[in-house]
């Protein structure tokens, strides 16, 4: 009965979203204030019903109602309660329900928190969001209903959640990621509403900026979480694989990064507006495209959901309607936009546009790399694969100009900049960063490679120019410390965000160039040594978990004869699905991770063991965390913005 109520709530939410799209727009057309104002209430109601629906599905998971097909296939009574709860979004149907829930959560946030905006604008924005919701509700109800029953023959127990997904990483990663994907819908809706209205001004950029930033923060942290999860859970010891599904999350991120930068220019200087709108449309369109790629089974991926051409066709039709429609609107309306504000060739404006050009070039690399295999096959040239070697080489080329400009940009003024003034700070930074790079490589690198030199240098270049700029700005009027305290949040946000990028670059460079990965055969009592570390294989014990059994290895690690740690990698067999899983043991550190995964037991009683030494891998995730933190700082700054911006503009 409860499942039917859940489904019914979903149907009501679907109808409300239809109303939310049509009625306010009608109100604007017919000049009816009531209809315009109904947008907010309809949005909140819609959220209420989808929340009820989601709560019911979660409850059904908690009480192990295996008469529901989705639960029977993705849960099991032996599963701990928190995994039963996270299993709600463990597969296609439930994760879509989460998607619509979050979409209406964002819509509601817009409805509740935008009190200062003209009601007509909000009504337009909410109508666009309503249309998006409507599409997804129909998708859930028509092709992917999580409330379908297995009756009359329901199983005694469920088929269990994929063991890979039984992890804290899965509890957090998808909701964060979806918050990001879906969050771009707000920027999208603002852009479409502005285009419909034919009014694209700085106010538009100002309103959509914090929303875009919020979505970007979620996406950044979500991707970082996913990467971290892949690293420790999959037993591969990698952090990015350039799989189509990973690319699907990376593309909106790149577009979003470009967007938050160009929004800043559009807001402050009133230029590039039509470009910014295109980016806002692209960021969300790429989220939608990602959804299509992941759920249609059109590309071969490790992370694919169960695929179905009918679902694919539905999303494709939706894509054409939404993205095609908005791009059409863009082509017709954007030419009317006039840019104001002058700037010279060498100015902050062009610096930020350079950042955008390079980011979009990177986006094109990922987009082409993801979709070209498909096109290649369709035009009869045969199947090809595009993977890590291609992407890595392209990105190591693109990052060079990107990081160099990134270092310079914050030092450059708006409108125009005298090049000569920059010589001194840039020379200083060059000197400092080269020196630090050399010391760094001397201390941490086992051998020299040009790629490592380049990457580490770029990282420190960005770090030192960022610090230099902070000092310059702080000592402009005050002493260093008072000056630093007087800096606005958004200035700190920029500096910390850029520093986070630098940290990530250093992490990636060191991990890519100096990782050691060994597959070895070890019997109990054996040891193996590399990079000053000695791994001693002490014992193998039996393992008994709640829903799995297996073996656990015990290793003692020493560095230069000093005890470092005891590591216990596990080999688990999940009893329901009979699935073997590797639980790698990881000894984490600031400058390196040690990583041990157990393979099979060999006929002679020895074990196949995989041992990794991964220098600076933590930096890869710490960098994005800094970026996420920076985004939050920048949003906090907005509160003071109301008073401050008036002063600034005066």
């Amino acid at each position, binding site marked *: 009965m409860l499942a039917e109520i859940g489904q019914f709530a979903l149907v009501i939410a679907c109808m409300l979203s239809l109303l939310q799209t049509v009625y306010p727009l009608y109100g604007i057309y017919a000049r009816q204030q009531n209809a315009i104002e109904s947008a907010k209430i309809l949005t909140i109601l819609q959220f209420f019903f989808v929340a009820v629906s989601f709560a019911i599905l979660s409850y059904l998971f908690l009480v192990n109602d295996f008469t529901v097909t989705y639960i029977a296939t993705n849960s099991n009574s032996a599963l701990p309660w928190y995994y039963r709860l996270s299993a709600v979004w463990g597969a296609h149907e439930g994760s879509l329900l989460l998607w619509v829930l979050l979409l209406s959560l964002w819509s509601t946030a817009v409805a509740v928190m935008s009190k200062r905006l003209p009601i007509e604008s909000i009504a337009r924005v909410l109508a666009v969001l309503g249309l998006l919701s409507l599409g997804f509700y129909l998708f859930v109800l028509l092709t992917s209903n999580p409330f379908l029953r297995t009756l009359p023959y329901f199983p005694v127990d469920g088929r269990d959640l994929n063991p890979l997904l039984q992890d804290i990483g899965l509890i957090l990663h998808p909701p964060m990621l979806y918050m990001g994907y879906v969050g771009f819908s707000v920027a999208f809706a603002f852009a479409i509403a502005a285009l419909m209205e034919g009014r694209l001004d700085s106010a538009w950029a100002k309103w959509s900026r914090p929303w875009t930033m919020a979505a970007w923060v979620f996406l950044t942290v979500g991707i970082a979480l996913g990467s971290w999860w892949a690293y420790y859970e999959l037993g591969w010891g990698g952090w990015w694989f350039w799989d189509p599904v990973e690319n699907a999350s990376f593309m909106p991120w790149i577009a979003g990064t470009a967007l938050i930068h160009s929004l800043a220019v559009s807001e402050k200087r009133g230029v590039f507006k*039509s470009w910014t709108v*295109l980016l806002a449309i*692209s960021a969300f*369109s790429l989220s939608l495209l990602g959804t*299509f790629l992941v759920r*249609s*089974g*059109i*590309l*071969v991926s490790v992370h694919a959901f169960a695929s179905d*051409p009918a679902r*694919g*066709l539905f999303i*494709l039709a939706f*894509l*054409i309607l939404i*993205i*095609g429609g908005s*791009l*059409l609107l*863009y*082509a*017709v309306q*954007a*030419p009317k936009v006039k840019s104001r504000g002058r700037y010279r060739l060498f100015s902050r404006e062009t610096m930020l546009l350079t950042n955008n050009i390079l980011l979009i070039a990177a986006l094109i690399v990922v987009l082409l790399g993801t*979709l070209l*295999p*498909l*096109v290649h*096959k*369709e035009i009869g040239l*045969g*199947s090809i694969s595009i993977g890590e070697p291609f992407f890595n080489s392209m990105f190591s080329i693109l990052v060079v100009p990107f990081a160099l400009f990134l270092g310079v940009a914050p030092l450059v003024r708006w409108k125009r900049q005298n090049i000569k003034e920059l010589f001194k700070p840039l020379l200083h930074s060059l000197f400092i960063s080269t020196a630090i790079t050399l010391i760094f490589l001397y201390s941490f690198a086992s051998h020299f490679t040009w790629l490592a030199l380049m990457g580490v240098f770029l990282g420190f270049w960005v770090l030192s120019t960022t610090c230099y700029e902070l000092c310059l700005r702080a000592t402009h009027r005050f002493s260093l410390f008072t000056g630093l305290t007087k800096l606005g949040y958004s200035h700190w946000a920029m500096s910390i965000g850029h520093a986070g990028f630098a940290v990530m670059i250093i992490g990636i460079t060191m991990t890519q160039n100096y990782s050691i990965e060994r597959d070895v055969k070890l019997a109990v009592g054996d040891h193996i040594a590399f990079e000053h570390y000695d791994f001693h294989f002490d014992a193998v014990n039996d393992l008994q978990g709640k829903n799995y059994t297996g073996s656990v290895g015990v290793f003692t690690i020493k560095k230069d004869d000093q005890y470092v740690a005891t590591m216990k990698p596990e080999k688990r067999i999940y009893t329901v699905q009979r699935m073997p899983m590797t639980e790698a043991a990881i000894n984490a550190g600031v400058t390196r991770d040690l990583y041990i995964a157990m393979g099979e037991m060999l006929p002679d009683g020895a074990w196949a063991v995989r041992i990794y030494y991964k220098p600076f891998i933590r930096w890869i995730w710490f960098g994005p965390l800094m970026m996420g933190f920076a985004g939050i700082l920048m949003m906090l700054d907005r509160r003071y913005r109301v008073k401050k911006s008036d002063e600034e503009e005066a």
Partner: protein
Amino acid sequence: MANTRKIIALSVPLLLFLVVCFFLFKGLYTDPRKLDSALIGQPVPEFTLQDIYDENKQYDASIFKGKKMLLNVWATWCPTCYAEHKFLNQLAGQDIYIVGMNYKDERKKAIRWLTDLKDPYKISLFDKDGMLGMDLGVYGAPETFFIDSKGIIQYRHVGDLNARIWEDELAELYNGMQ
């Protein structure tokens, strides 16, 4: 005038998007995991393999010359092969010359399979270690190679053969082969 030009310029994203959609649509109806063989237009690679029934009987690539034929790769561990076996017998009944290659399997099981289900193959190769399979680029059973009378591979079909696929696409291909 200038405005029209601007509209055209700003329509570029829309056009690109529609092109992408065209390919996405086509892609929905092709299986990305079905690969074309890399050996099309090339002769069957050199090999020496035993007969499945008789260890002392050996074959090499010359058996593929002289007439057009199918080379069917199968194994007893492959459920889809079981599904297609009946149809292979039908094809054999229509005087189509089929060579079987038992791929990474056990001889005893394979012989029992052929005795129980009827043997559609004129010659049965036994590729225990998957050596010929590797050279043919076999990546999953069943696969069926279309080989012309000169011993040149013309086509590879991945997955099971059945009446529908045969009539829709493959019969024409087979009949067209020299």
